[in-house]
């Protein structure tokens, strides 16, 4: 391959004929049948589909939490599909930030400690940890007065912003959010979506959002529709929603 075409270097995610099959005894479940797509550096993409469509499995593969049964997955021009568990862990530590539906914060640790956690596994020294954590909390618009609070003392919207700060802290190439508004009411959901949009627009971050709600997906620039293990549609969002941050700040 030439590799000199200008768009090639900009591919952050390149999935080629991804197939994922789960075996349970004699029963084989084809979760992803033949999925190919690319996501460029700096894009804000929503992967949308109903439950059971395979979007979660796709997210696991994109997030280097799982490897495909067959096909190739290039992340940052590196073939991830054949990596070992520990190599995948390194990829996650250095290049990907996760935001989960259930926030998944450590309950008996402070906000600051929760945000610092990924840096521990990335072997970053203590002075740098503090600087990075504080920057990430600022970027996710988390108010400074709550930095010392235990995470289980916070509201859902606050928790999700801690989780976003945690995802940002090691300056990852990709932010992967799995139903980030699923456990939040509309109002706090808007705040979280606003945070993503700002990170995308102001810092040019690459964000992949997994959701089953069209309303949430329409905050992205592009929507990949997944159904029954196949991509059924991949389009730019025509009337993109801008999150209404109800009096935040």
């Amino acid at each position: 391959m030439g590799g000199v075409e200008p768009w090639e270097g900009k591919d952050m995610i390149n999935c080629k004929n991804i197939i994922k099959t789960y075996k349970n005894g004699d029963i084989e479940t084809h979760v992803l049948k033949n999925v190919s797509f690319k996501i460029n550096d700096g894009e804000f993409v929503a992967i949308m589909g109903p439950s059971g469509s395979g979007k979660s499995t796709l997210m696991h593969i994109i997030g280097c939490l799982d490897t495909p049964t067959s096909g190739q997955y290039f992340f940052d021009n590196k073939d991830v599909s054949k990596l070992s568990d520990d190599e995948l862990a390194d990829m996650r530590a250095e290049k990907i930030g996760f935001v989960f539906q259930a926030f998944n914060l450590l309950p008996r640790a402070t906000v600051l400690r929760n945000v610092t956690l990924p840096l521990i596994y990335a072997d970053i020294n203590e002075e740098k940890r503090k600087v990075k954590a504080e920057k990430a909390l600022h970027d996710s618009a988390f108010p400074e007065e709550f930095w010392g609070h235990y995470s289980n003392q916070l509201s859902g919207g606050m928790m999700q912003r801690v989780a976003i700060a945690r995802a940002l802290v090691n300056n990852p190439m990709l932010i992967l959010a799995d139903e980030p508004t699923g456990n939040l009411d509309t109002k706090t959901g808007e705040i979280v979506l606003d945070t993503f949009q700002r990170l995308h627009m102001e810092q040019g971050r690459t964000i992949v959002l997994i959701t089953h709600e069209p309303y949430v997906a329409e905050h992205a620039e592009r929507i990949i529709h997944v159904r029954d293990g196949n991509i059924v549609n991949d389009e730019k969002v025509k009337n993109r929603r801008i999150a209404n941050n109800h009096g935040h700040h």
Partner: protein
Amino acid sequence: MKITDIFQETYTALSANKARSSLTILGIVIGIGSVIAMVSIGQGASGQIQSSIEGLGSNLLTVSPGAAQQGRGFVSQGRGSAQTLKNEDVDVLRKIEGVVAISPERQGRYQIVSPLGNNTNSTVVGMSPEYAQVRNVSIENGYFVSDANVRNLGRVVVLGPTVATDLFGEENPVGKTIRVNKLNFKVIGVLQSKGSAGFFNPDDMVFVPIITMQKILAGGDYLSSIAISVESQDLMPQVQEEATMAIADKHRVDLESLDFSIVSQAEILGTLTQVTDTFTLFLAAVAGISLLVGGIGIMNMMLTTVTERTREIGLRKSIGAKKKDISVQFLVEAVMLTVIGGILGIILGWLLSFIISTLSGLATTISLSSVMLAVGVSAGIGIVFGYYPARRAARLSPIDALRYE
């Protein structure tokens, strides 16, 4: 992941569930504490017996009548029943080089009555003045039996301190007359207390001249034993061998069918040490079982913890934790529990043995080795019983762990 990070994570995890952590630690505390206490009691008892035996006289050989019974040790020899040891044997033994003093002895048990009307049943030992030197006894009050007393068939008696108290209470017995087996004896002295040696109490004895014992009290000119004090530890085996030859020659018996036996103090001590060591081992084994139960408690808690924290493990993996990071974290948690338990257990064991030694007077000793062993064992238990839960945690797939409800 740095060591300080691991410790901080461990602290957070353990303090998150204080009640459960404390109860699990308690299991180890009891286990380690009882091992320390039991071993200290055993070692204390063994040390006390050893010092008592050594206090009975140093470098001592004891000749007993009757054949030695193979494998049954000194306690069960038919001592006193055989009549093969005679006064003449003592003269043969005196010629052996390295012998410092020889004490022929004849024992019996008789009723003893004091003028106050108190009476006791005690061991009466007929012996020569050399007894004091050989058996390492000294006079508290009055005089010990003299050569003249022996020659003159003197009806004099020296009391052990226990007997003196039994018969006379607080009064001074010296100069009083007591009745031993209905015969009058004059008390000429009282011995200093030596303390019990575990199997017999030298304080609970009375002493009369050997000839008086043989001719007047017991009858028959044989001896129950001959104690030989040897010049030095090094000469013991040589003197033991020569003494065996000399008496065998005198008795006209060959070495295969001896009608007497000679045991050294070291052998007696060895037998007793063997007994106390077995005893210590037994106590430690019983305590060790409770330690094992404590270890199973650790494993139980860690398995519960791993299940409860499945989502946390999933999260840690998703943000970059490797298998090793997870297994080390859980292993350190288990080891931390057991080490804290071990340290508290040492304190508990020390307190227990202190209380026991205060109450019973048994000088318990806690050796550095048993403390080191306890710490090592408790850390080892943490590793052994924490390994399986830690491995289980590390092997969880991040996807399954994140999905876990």
